[in-house]
C-alpha cells in the first residue's frame, strides 16, 4: 500500500528522519519483547527461568517434552489440542457454509432491506457473552452437552458468524458487476457464474475470513472455561492455565506450553495481516 504512495514524506533522509525510523524500530522491538521472552523462557531450565532475567543460557527442549507428556488424572496436551482442533475446525467450516451464501445474498444479489439484515447480524455481536452465559449453561446442561466438544462447536459457530458475514460481504462487494453481467451474456447459469467468476475473485477473502474465525475460536477462553472445563471438552487455553501450579517452579514449563499454544495463531496472523485487519474492522476499511 505505502509503496505506491507519492505524498510528501516529511523528514526523510535527514537526521530527524533516521531518528524516527530508529524510534519505530525501538517501539516495534519493545512490543515484541514479551513474546520473545516467553519463547526464550520455554527453552530454559526451571532454575534459569526462576531467577534474575537471563539472556544467555544453555537451551534445552526438556520443558517442551515435559508439558506434552501426559500425566494421569490431568488434562493432557494431546487431549486439549484434539479438543481445540475439533471445536475450531468444525465451527469454522460451519461458519463458512452459512456465511458464504448469506454474504452473497447481501452483496451481489442484494435482497430487500439488506442493510437492516446486515445490522441485525452485527447487533448480536454487541451483546456481551456474559449476559447470555447462564441460559447457555442451563441449556447445555439440559442437553447433556456440558464438558463436550459439541457445545463449543455450536457456540463458536454462533460467535464467529456475524463477523464472517460482514467480512465476506465486503469482499463480495468488490467483484465487478460487469464481469458477472458478461458471464450472464455468455450464457453462464447461476452456478457457473459462482464457480467460474465470483469464487476465484473472492477466494483470498474467504481464506482470510476462515483464518480469522480459526484465530478467534482458538484463543477463546471464557465459554470454554464455563461450559467445558474438564478433559472431555477442555481446549488449549485451559491446558495453558493448567500449567500454573502452586507446587514448585513452573515458569519455564508455562512458557513452553504458552509457546506451543500461541505459535500456530501467530504464524497464521503474520501471513494474513492485511486482509485480517479489514475483517476485524468489519469490512469497513478497504
Amino acid at each position, binding site marked *: 500500500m505505502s509503496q505506491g504512495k507519492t505524498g510528501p514524506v516529511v523528514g526523510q533522509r535527514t537526521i530527524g528522519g533516521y531518528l524516527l525510523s530508529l524510534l519505530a524500530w525501538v517501539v516495534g522491538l519493545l*512490543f515484541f519483547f514479551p513474546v520473545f521472552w516467553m519463547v526464550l523462557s520455554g527453552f530454559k531450565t526451571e532454575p534459569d*527461568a526462576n531467577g534474575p532475567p537471563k539472556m544467555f543460557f544453555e537451551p534445552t527442549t526438556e520443558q517442551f517434552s515435559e508439558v506434552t507428556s501426559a500425566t494421569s488424572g490431568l488434562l493432557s496436551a494431546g487431549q486439549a489440542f484434539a479438543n481445540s482442533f475439533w471445536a475450531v475446525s468444525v465451527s469454522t467450516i460451519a461458519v463458512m457454509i452459512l456465511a458464504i451464501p448469506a454474504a452473497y445474498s447481501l452483496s451481489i444479489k442484494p435482497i430487500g432491506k439488506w442493510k437492516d439484515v446486515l445490522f441485525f447480524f452485527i447487533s448480536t455481536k454487541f451483546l456481551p457473552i456474559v*449476559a447470555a452465559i447462564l441460559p447457555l449453561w442451563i441449556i447445555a446442561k439440559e442437553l447433556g452437552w456440558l464438558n463436550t466438544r459439541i457445545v463449543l462447536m455450536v457456540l463458536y459457530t454462533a460467535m464467529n458468524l456475524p463477523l464472517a458475514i460482514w467480512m465476506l460481504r465486503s469482499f463480495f462487494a468488490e467483484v465487478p458487476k460487469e464481469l458477472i453481467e458478461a458471464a450472464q451474456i455468455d450464457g453462464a447459469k447461476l452456478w457457473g457464474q459462482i464457480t467460474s467468476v465470483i469464487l476465484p475473485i473472492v477466494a483470498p477473502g474467504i481464506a482470510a475470513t476462515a483464518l480469522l474465525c480459526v484465530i478467534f475460536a482458538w484463543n477463546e477462553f471464557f465459554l470454554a472455561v464455563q461450559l467445558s472445563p474438564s478433559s472431555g471438552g477442555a481446549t488449549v487455553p485451559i491446558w495453558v492455565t493448567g500449567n500454573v501450579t502452586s507446587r514448585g517452579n513452573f515458569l519455564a514449563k508455562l512458557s513452553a506450553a504458552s509457546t506451543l499454544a500461541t505459535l500456530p495463531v501467530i504464524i497464521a496472523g503474520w501471513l494474513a495481516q492485511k486482509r485480517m485487519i479489514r475483517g476485524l474492522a468489519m469490512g469497513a476499511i478497504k
Partner: protein
Amino acid sequence: MSLYYSFTKWTVTPPTPRTWTGIGNYTDAFTNIFFRRAAVTSIVMTVTAVVLSVLLGTLIALLLDRKFFGQGFVRTLILTPFLIMPVVAGLVWKNQMFSAAFGVLNWVLNQVGIESIEFATKYPRWAIVGVLVWQWTPFMMLIILAGLQGQSSSVLEAAKVDGASPRATFFQITLPHLRPYIELGVLLGSIYLIQVFDHIFVMTGGGPQSTNIPLFVYQRSIGGGWRFGSASAFSIVVVVATIILATFGLRVLSGLLEGEEA
C-alpha cells in the same frame, strides 16, 4: 430466558425451588456494593484501555506511515501482541514481566535504583489495563494506519504548495480524515474490552480492584456462587447498558457504510 430467571430466587447448589421475587434482584443489584464496584471497575478499565490504546496506536501509526528500512517487518512485530492468546498474555505479563522476583520490568527498575514492585498484586487494575493496552494498541494502530494510507496524496500536496506547515496539515487535514477510523477503533475496542474476562481471571482471579462485571457474574454463578437468579439480574443490567453503547455503535457503522451502493 435470562430475563425470566432474573425475577426469581434460584440457587442451583444447594438446589432450592425457584421462587418468584419480582424486582427484588434488581434492587439488590443497585444496592449491592460489590456489583457497583464491579461496574466501576468495568467502566474504568474499558475507558482507560481504549483511550490509551487509541492514542498509542495513532502515534505508532504515524511513525510507521513513512518509508524506512524494514517497515513491513516492524509492523509485523507490533502486530504480534494482538495475536497472542489472551490467557497467555495475562500469564506471561504477570509471571515474567510484572513479577517482583523474576520480572523483567522490575529488573529494569532495579537497574535504575528503584525497588521491586509486585505490580499484579499492588496495582491489579492498572496491571491489567497495561496488558490490555499492549494487546489492543496493535489493533488500533492497524486501523489508523489503513486510514492514513487511504489519504489522497493530491490533497496533501496541495496543502504543501499552499505553504501549510506540517503541524497545520496534520490538525486540519489528517486528523479530520482519520476521524471515522478512530471512531471505529473506539467502538470495536469498547465492544471487546467491556467483555474482558480472560486476563483478569488468570492475573488476579478477581480481587477487590480488578473484578469487572463478567468476572463478577461468573463468581456469583458458575464459578461457585450458583445464585442464578441474582446473577441473571446483573447480566440484564449489563444488557441494558450495552444497548445504549450499541445504538451509538450502529450509528458509527452505518456512517461508514454511507455512500456505498447496494
